[in-house]
């Protein structure tokens, strides 16, 4: 099937689906005037029920916590798949040289790049940690904080180069963070059941409103997500950066 046929088939599918699309399009609520009741109910009841001010975190880590658990395993599955596909071929040896096209010059890092990366990388990781820890109070949470921390790791690579970066970052630690985070989330769901409660029932003390230590069990699930996202994205960066290395055969060529 060539390109023209593929586009023709897409057009045909579009025409066939038009009545369904039309029904959905005409049934959409007017923009800015939602008719949903679930979200407003969470906004109304959340602060009193869970003592947290960030309702997005409350939905993610408590009210719809079981959805987030499923999503956590999707994260784990996708990252495991990517790592399995990429591991083994390149860059296992820390001294492996960068793969490059024959005849292309290698330009070293500028000193200003190293300086800026060394200044900003710890600051960004600290900011990520702050963001992850204040999930219950201000915008942020394990997902966002984890990604910010992982991007700090990437900045370290930019400043230190591959070899220095690999010496700083241990792949087993990242794997343990990723798996351990998901495990922590699952255990936070199962532990209340051992005590005779429901899955992910918030049995811990709820703390005070607008305080970092508020939300009870949400603190544990949020930490689990933060660890898993940091470890997962760190592993992805590691595997993809290994791909920039030459294989042994290319090295000796």
């Amino acid at each position: 099937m060539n390109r023209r046929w593929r586009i023709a088939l897409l057009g045909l599918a579009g025409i066939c689906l038009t009545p369904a699309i039309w029904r959905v399009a005409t049934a959409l609520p007017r923009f800015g005037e939602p008719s949903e009741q679930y979200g407003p109910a969470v906004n109304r009841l959340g602060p009193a029920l869970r003592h947290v001010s960030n309702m997005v975190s409350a939905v993610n880590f408590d009210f719809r916590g079981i959805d987030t658990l499923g999503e956590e395993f999707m994260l784990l599955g996708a990252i495991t798949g990517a790592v399995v596909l990429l591991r083994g071929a390149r860059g296992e040896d820390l001294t492996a040289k960068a793969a490059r096209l024959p005849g292309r010059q290698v330009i070293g890092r500028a000193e200003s790049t190293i300086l800026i990366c060394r200044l900003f990388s710890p600051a960004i990781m600290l900011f990520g940690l702050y963001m992850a820890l204040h999930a219950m109070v201000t915008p942020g949470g394990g997902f966002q904080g984890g990604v910010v921390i992982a991007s700090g790791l990437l900045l370290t690579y930019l400043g230190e180069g591959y070899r220095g970066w690999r010496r700083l970052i241990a792949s087993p630690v990242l794997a343990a963070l990723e798996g351990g985070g998901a495990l922590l989330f699952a255990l936070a769901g199962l532990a209340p059941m051992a005590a005779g409660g429901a899955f992910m029932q918030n049995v811990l003390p709820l703390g005070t409103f607008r305080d970092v230590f508020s939300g009870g069990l949400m603190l544990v699930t949020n930490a689990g997500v933060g660890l898993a996202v940091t470890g997962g994205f760190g592993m992805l960066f590691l595997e993809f950066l290994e791909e920039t290395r030459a294989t042994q055969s290319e090295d000796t060529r």
Partner: protein
Amino acid sequence: MTVLPWFAAAWLFAIGIYGIASSRNLIHLIGCLSVCQSSTYVLLLSVGYRWGAAAPIFYDHPPGTMAVDPVVQALVLTDIVVGATVTALLLAMVLQVGRKYGELDPQKLRPLVARAHR
């Protein structure tokens, strides 16, 4: 103006789908998939938006202030993270395809089985 967000979401989805159908390169195809996925962010956030409402984070304003829907925001948040990791998985697959065949045009790729019997 009240229909503009729906049109933006539909447009993003449509150009993403068109890009996937007409793609000549697998990496371009993954980019198009990401465009398609962004249309869901626009759609979800638009569904939860409310005129004159604040963020669903009651730190600066007291609980009880009218706020936008937090449920769709939580959905978009997990959507983005899972989307990023799935994109990474797809890119890893494309890397392996490129290594095996030296070819990234989906038109020119043949099934693995046919190749094995040759």
